[in-house]
């Protein structure tokens, strides 16, 4: 059984010889060929070379071609902020100040934005490794795309402007369908709908605002003879049930969700599940043996049907290649790896962190814990919401972001007892965890603290 067969059988819920392995190497692929994130995501040759290196080193059963949720947004008029070690983020939102709808004429086509380069690389990768490796075409989910277009106002619209949200979701769903047409023609086997922001709204809001959109997308993918996956990141535990109701072939989660409990839910719907090797604590900062041990433990504790082993989301740029190689080895040669690491003890994190004296603060302290607001869309919008408060209140409050990508902040998270990202603590108390507050709610709370 080759890798592609293994993936496609898993997504059809058929028995396989072992769980499939899909390393989500987006910008990280650049680190393997000495190119930064911008060079990777804007140059076809670099992208192709990086992907070939991923294929060689990590021996994947399936692999994404481009992991960048801003491709559609860029075409639809969002300005991007390019980063050296992460995918670009959205800088401006064309619908931030208007409820007018965008013209259909702006919708993606093969000659727009970076699509000529991406479609070309997809075809080349297909020709090079597509016979035995399942290729994932990643598209931006309709809710995250709606927030790219509208900005943080979308979270207020969810409460006050349901009809408008429907109209916007219809538009972004059509964008998704057009991307599926294009990626299907370029030879993609699996369409992954990546919607990190879904974890930041309630299941009720998901059902009213998002269900039809995702159901339509997955029905459409199935009708085109392709397989589908629903990627979410952040603490999507509460949303898993309603996500399953949209009937994707698989769901992919990150370390914020407990894999065993999640699998119990997806198994009830006969949906495959993928994930959730921790991105920063393990893949970025851990040792090779820790990565191997973690994956072996996953394989020993989870049932192997409907299972894909993968990083929780797009791997950070600086993940040491040996860590991903270790994870690959654990999936491919589980027995041997189990023996290799059975007596291994992970080194303890030896960093001292001093927390603020919360009882004696002179003004409200807003602490935002993120994976990295520059690279994780859910974190971007959480941070953006807090920055609005920062701009509004100025010197009256203190605002600080702690990125989980830095070891010292991991130590801080442990000391604070932070369990899910992104989240916001105010004066040392957890206030918002994986729910982005509307501006009214946020300002109301800060006003109450200021008296």
């Amino acid at each position: 059984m080759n890798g592609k067969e293994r993936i496609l059988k898993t997504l059809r819920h058929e028995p396989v010889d072992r769980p499939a392995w899909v390393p989500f190497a987006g910008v990280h692929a650049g680190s393997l060929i000495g190119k930064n994130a911008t060079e990777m995501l804007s140059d076809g040759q670099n992208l192709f070379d990086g992907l070939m290196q991923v294929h060689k080193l990590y021996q994947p059963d399936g692999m994404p071609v481009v992991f960048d949720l801003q491709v559609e947004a860029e075409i639809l008029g969002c300005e991007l902020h390019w980063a050296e070690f992460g995918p670009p983020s959205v800088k401006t939102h064309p619908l931030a100040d208007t409820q007018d709808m965008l013209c259909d004429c702006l919708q993606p086509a093969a000659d727009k934005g970076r699509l000529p380069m991406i479609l070309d690389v997809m075809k080349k990768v297909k020709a090079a490794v597509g016979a035995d490796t399942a290729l994932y075409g990643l598209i931006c989910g309709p809710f995250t795309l709606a927030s790219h277009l509208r900005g943080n106002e979308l979270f207020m619209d969810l409460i006050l402007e349901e009809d408008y949200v429907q109209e916007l979701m219809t538009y972004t769903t059509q964008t998704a369908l057009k991307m599926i047409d294009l990626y299907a023609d370029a030879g993609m086997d699996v369409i992954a709908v990546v919607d990190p922001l879904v974890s930041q709204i309630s299941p009720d809001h998901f059902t009213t605002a998002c269900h039809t959109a995702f159901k339509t997308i997955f029905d459409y993918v199935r009708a085109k003879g392709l397989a589908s996956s629903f990627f979410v990141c952040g603490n999507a535990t509460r949303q898993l049930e309603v996500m399953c109701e949209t009937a994707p072939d698989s769901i992919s989660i990150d370390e914020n969700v407990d894999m065993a409990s999640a699998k119990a839910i997806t198994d009830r719907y006969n949906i495959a599940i993928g994930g959730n090797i921790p991105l920063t604590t393990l893949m970025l900062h851990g040792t090779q043996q820790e990565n191997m041990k973690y994956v072996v433990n996953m394989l020993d504790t989870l049932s192997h049907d409907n299972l894909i082993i993968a990083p929780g989301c797009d791997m950070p740029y600086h993940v040491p290649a040996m860590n991903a190689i270790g994870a690959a080895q654990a999936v491919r040669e589980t027995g041997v790896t189990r023996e290799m690491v059975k007596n291994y003890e992970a080194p303890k994190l030896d960093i001292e962190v001093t927390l603020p004296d919360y009882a004696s603060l002179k003004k409200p302290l807003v602490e935002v814990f993120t994976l990295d607001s520059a690279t994780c869309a859910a974190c971007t919008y959480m941070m953006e919401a807090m920055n609005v408060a920062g701009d509004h209140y100025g010197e009256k409050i203190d605002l600080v972001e702690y990125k989980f990508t830095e070891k010292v902040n991991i130590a801080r998270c442990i000391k604070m007892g932070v369990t899910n990202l992104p989240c916001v603590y105010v004066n040392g108390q957890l206030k918002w965890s994986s729910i982005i507050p509307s501006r009214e709610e946020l300002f109301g709370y800060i006003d109450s603290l200021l008296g």
Partner: protein
Amino acid sequence: MTTIYLITGFLGAGKTTFLKERLLHAPVRTGVLVNDFGKVNFDGLQIKRQGMDLIELSNGSIFCSCLKDNFIEGLVELVERSLDEVYIESSGLADPSDMGKVLDSVRLRLTCGDFTFGGAICLVDALFFPKVLPKMVSVERQLRHSHLVVINKCDLVGEDQLAQVEQTISALNPQAKILRTTYGQVAWDRLGLNVFAIADEETTNRIETRNKNLVLQLVYEPDEAVFRDFLSAIGSHFFRVKGLVRLGGQIQKVDQVNQQIQIEPYHLENGDDPPAALQEIGRLVCLTSQGLESISHLARMADQYLPGHFKLEM
């Protein structure tokens, strides 16, 4: 001097049949501007005849801002060719409430030639009219902005319904002349069109109210009975389904309005180039205004009735 006529009417009311009938007797130097909702302009295919000036505007309404500029440019181009008559066949969902403004813009942009407006003719499907009128604001607008209303398919309904249809139309537009017919046939020379003034309104054709259409391309020839079952299964979700499909080894024209399905052999007119659609097994354009549920429904039904036989595209 070119005379411009506007032909409106809801999907399936018989605009193309009416126009084809008219073109058989029209002057030699005639131009047609056809506006079809789909990406593939099937109406254009049917009307095209050798040497005729034909402009096709597809994938939206000519009264919507997304196509209006092309519409005006197209009319300017036809008038500047000094044709005798120009017919505009609008899409079934067109709201022509600002036709006056469109004509003013054409006049402003003309560098040569001149025109007069011959009037707006609205086709009505006698059978479906009572069902369609309450649902579609564009149908009411088409009637209110007409000089002549042709009630078509009169053979499909009784006198009571016809009288009711006439009464409803008169209430909406007391000045318009009303004719009854079948197969779109009217004695053009005796129309006596009175082009009375109709005040413009803002059109309801906007980008955000634009209808969705999907293209279903067949890659294998389906079994006709199964294909008919498929059409029945999607009928309730789509205003209109039309296209060319190879069935029983022969190219057939498929035309569906609500649950009424018409499948008949497609014949090329003498001298026509075979359209690209004939090289394929088939291509259907499906139009809906019911949003995402319809797309989802079409995907599921196609997968159920025609598995592996089709490609679906937005």
